């Protein structure tokens, strides 16, 4: 997973996340939007045949002086916790 920041300011960040697709990006975006200090989060990905930019680009906007990169890190932790919680709940039922 290679990251490349394409745009960055105090409360806004655009970052390319190489090698990922909707599977992970949509979960990540959904989790970012649950964050209190994230005012907007979206990702954009083009089909392989389109030429040009095909890696997903994640854009995050925050409020209250929160660093978008920190929000991203917290969201990554949350996604991991969700996956573990889901696996535990599934194994408990199985």
């Amino acid at each position, binding site marked *: 997973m290679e*990251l490349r920041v394409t745009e960055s300011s105090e409360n806004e960040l655009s970052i390319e996340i190489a090698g990922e697709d909707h*599977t992970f990006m949509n979960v990540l975006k959904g989790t970012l939007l649950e964050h209190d200090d994230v005012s907007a989060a979206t990702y954009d990905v083009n089909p392989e045949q389109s030429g040009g930019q095909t890696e997903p680009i994640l854009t995050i906007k925050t409020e209250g002086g929160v660093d978008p990169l920190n929000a991203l890190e917290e969201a990554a932790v949350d996604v991991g916790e969700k996956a573990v919680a889901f696996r535990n709940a599934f194994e408990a*039922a199985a």
Partner: protein
Amino acid sequence: MTEEYDVEFVEREDREARFLVRGVTPAFANGIRRAMIADVPTMAIDTVRFVENSSVMFDEQLALRLGLVPLTTPPVGEFVEDDTVTLSIDVEGPATAYSGNLVSSDSLVQPADENVPIIDLKDGQRLEAEAEVVLDRGKNHAKHQGGVAVGYRHLQRVEVVGDVPEFEEPDERIVRGVIEDDGELVPTSEFDHDLTNRYPDQEVAIEDVPNAFVFHVETDGSFTVEELVTRAAETIEARATELEEAVQL
């Protein structure tokens, strides 16, 4: 953040199951579904060396057919991408070569089904070949897809709201999936997917239960449903950890 998930099985067999997950967001449900289809690695034949092929099909056609044979996938950690296992086949006509004729060099990697036909051989025709098996993901080739027919639907809550007027012509009310009736989970197949069979002469209201999804999962025999779901959750977990580490740098 603590997530409250609740999983409950509705139907369950080795290769096919239906289970309800509560407390899951649509994004996460879809992530799990997509991970089951494209991101859980399975074993499949990738390269074939033909010793003799006097059948009516070209080597390439047979290689594709061999590749699509589902093979059992060993537990996590036994194999990594780039490890190979060799399978060999030697059948002489008149006979049909089946997946069951494949002889494996590793007991952990076997054809999941014995009865997949590969080619019908006539008198004097022969197929002898060696095949290399690799571990890969469904994203790269459909033969590595462990989950076939993986999907989910909202759990639907059915409530009786009154009686149908006495002389009204009853219409059928078709629903598919699993319904919740007073906390009881009922697959719609039990009443032929028609609510008027279960609630004759009664008016019912149906609504989707928020954040409750009924998954239907079927595997190709590479592993059990439980394995598939756990491994799918693990791939998402692995990517989250990777992102976390990449961000910290």
